[in-house]
């Protein structure tokens, strides 16, 4: 019983990342009609926003410490962050410690800008092109972005820890009446789940209570008429892309303490997120979110030792198996609109 609850918890936080990326993908596909294979790269860039801000906050100058020696026997050069000198050591350390949450503020404008640049520079030329072209060009862009990040940050994962206040784990088991230490879960992953829920709620509220998406959808259906009505549809398309990029970026920012960011993390999530979108239903936002959590939980269960003993290797293929079954039996996905992908 405890094992099952544990894997559900695991699935929820993994599913949060899938759901957020799939949400952005579906926003772009459902409203703009573009299949964006560079979305994983946006997730990765968001994570590297956190890395960059963390590094910026720790920009230091070198002070020679005569009392210690370095590996060659010369006096040790100690790095003293400038932030210590501006805010004092204690406050400076607190700011550095909270770099990841502070990066949210830094990442939002950066990701919107990157989304806007992508859309204006590349994506807008592909609105009316076949999906295959869109996939090729965005996948190429994803590889370019990945290699740029690798060039500047190296190939190794870069540790970006959560604030000290969120270190350690919460004993769910004890709270629910089980034995202590049977169901423990790291605080930060719970924070991530809560954050993801907030973002998803925010996006849905935005779509529900504003006419923005309606205008964008109208623009997709009949661009000329919408423009004749005096609406600047180009600007709205760009903003929609910026919004989707920001969602992916924020998912990346808060994910950094869970897995040290590296240049390849975008690709690792991209394929699974596309499977999530397909299973949930291309163009269906609730479907993308639901499928994200479901598949996250499923993946968690498939990695259980008991399951692996029975079906070795199932953890690596379970998501794709489910996708194949869904595509064969219900091509429009769990909550997709009837007629989408069924011709």
């Amino acid at each position: 019983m405890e094992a099952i609850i544990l894997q559900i918890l695991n699935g929820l936080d993994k599913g949060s990342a899938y759901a957020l990326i799939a949400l952005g993908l579906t926003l772009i596909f459902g409203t703009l009609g573009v299949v964006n294979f560079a979305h994983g790269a946006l997730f990765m860039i968001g994570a590297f926003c956190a890395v960059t801000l963390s590094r910026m906050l720790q920009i230091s100058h070198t002070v020679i410490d005569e009392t210690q020696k370095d590996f060659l026997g010369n006096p040790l050069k100690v790095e003293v962050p400038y932030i210590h000198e501006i805010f004092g050591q204690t406050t400076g350390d607190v700011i550095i410690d909270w770099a990841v949450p502070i990066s949210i503020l830094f990442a939002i404008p950066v990701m919107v800008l990157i989304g806007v640049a992508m859309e204006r520079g590349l994506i807008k030329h592909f609105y009316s092109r076949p999906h295959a072209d869109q996939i090729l060009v965005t996948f190429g862009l994803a590889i370019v972005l990945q290699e740029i990040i690798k060039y500047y940050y190296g190939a190794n994962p870069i540790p970006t820890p959560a604030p000290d206040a969120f270190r350690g784990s919460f004993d769910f088991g004890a709270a629910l009446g089980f034995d202590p230490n049977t169901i423990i879960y790291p605080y930060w992953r719970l924070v991530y789940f809560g954050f993801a829920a907030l973002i998803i709620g925010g996006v849905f509220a935005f779509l529900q209570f504003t006419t923005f998406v309606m205008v964008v959808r109208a623009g997709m259906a009949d661009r000329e008429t919408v423009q004749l009505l005096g609406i600047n549809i180009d600007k709205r398309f760009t903003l929609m892309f910026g919004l989707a990029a920001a969602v992916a970026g924020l998912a990346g920012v808060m994910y950094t303490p869970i897995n040290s960011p590296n240049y390849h993390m975008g690709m690792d999530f991209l394929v699974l997120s596309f499977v999530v979108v397909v299973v949930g239903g291309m163009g269906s936002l609730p479907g993308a979110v639901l499928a994200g959590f479901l598949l996250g939980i499923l993946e968690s269960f498939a990695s259980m030792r008991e399951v692996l003993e029975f079906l070795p290797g199932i953890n690596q293929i379970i998501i794709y198996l489910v996708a194949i079954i869904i595509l064969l039996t219900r091509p429009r996905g769990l909550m997709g609109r009837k007629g989408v992908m069924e011709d």
Partner: protein
Amino acid sequence: MSKMNLTRRGVLKTGAIAGAGVAAPTIFTAQSAAAFTNEPTGSSVTLGFNVPQSGPYADEGADELRAYELAVEHLNGGGDGGLMNTFSSKALQGNGIMGKKVEYVTGDTQTKSDAARASARSMIEKDGAVMITGGSSSGVAVAVQALCQEAGVIFMAGLTHSNDTTGKDKKANGFRHFFNSYMSGAALAPILANNYGTDRRAYHLTADYNWGYTTEEAVRTSTEAMGWETVAAVKTPLTQTDFSSYIAPVLQSGADVLVLNHYGGNMVNSLTNAVQFGLRDKLVNDKNFEIVVPLYSRLMAKGAGANVKGIFGSTNWHWSLQDEGSKQFVQSFGTKYGFPPSQAAHTCYVQAMLYADAVERAGSFNPCAVAEALEGFEFDGMGNGPTLYRAEDHQCFKDVLVVKGKENPTSEFDLLEIVEVTPVSQVTYDASIFGGELGSCNPGA
């Protein structure tokens, strides 16, 4: 008498066929002129450095390349001479190898076996490399070693830790200086027993490929011999990034030690996840929960940050060693590049030097002569103490380092401290336990 039909088409056709015939790779065809593959005839000799320049181990590959470039500089008489000053054999004179200037070409293995084989093949066929060296993965090492055996060149392995490289996949043209899984297990077990007791229950998470299997087997065998119980051994996919679903059940299993048979990015992520779940703060079976990482890489330890503190593991070499060879190498590398070398850099530098020295002692670049010079070669002054290049399996036998993550590192390079230098007698094994046939050397002629 027939008229010769000399048309433009005819000339082009014949010319094309002739050109194709001339350009065809001759690597696997008999070379009547040369006695062995890529026999150096001019005033220079070319070595092939096949390292991961892209992919997840690119940073380690970059360090390996730095070490090779340093070795070439020293072999050609530049710099401060490096380990030539402390090496027990004095055959190298700093005038290249056998008077020929050392040049090199580089290839990118991408940490993928097929890409590594393709780049090695290209260096042998197109660039005339007489020896191939480098790499940061056992899968790649085994693949390139087999290629070099077919092609008739020597392969000096880089960083490869699986038993298989000089075990069931050993080849007569291949040589490894780096230690292996068996040695790690044998070195670690007594330290773990001393520090954690003999009444422990271990849970293994293992990377699902040949290196993972051999490391898990080595650690299991040696710890079980000390009295530990292995509760479970779960295989994790090599591409896995989030290990939470594997870490989560560990506490429920009743285990009080987690052994992470992971390397590189796997190790960074699994260790980070394990620490996030607070495993190290837990008390299980009235004991502190402990984590063990059998193979450490300092470059990867950087990626795990503070999570490595207090965690035991093993390495082939560490820059803090105080013997003359290690100090000299750290000085040479550190002065040129500004930071201490990693164990990957060290093993690659040493392999390059050992090859050059073997050629000098054999008096020939012929792979069979070089192999004979290396087999049974005993040497010292290269940073690991007295070392034997065993003839039966072309594996170096030397002391092994057991290290621990430092509690208070003074810099980003100072993450590990040496806990014990396990004497070579404790980690030596009979060559027959891993099977495989060395075969005979192939000069390529």
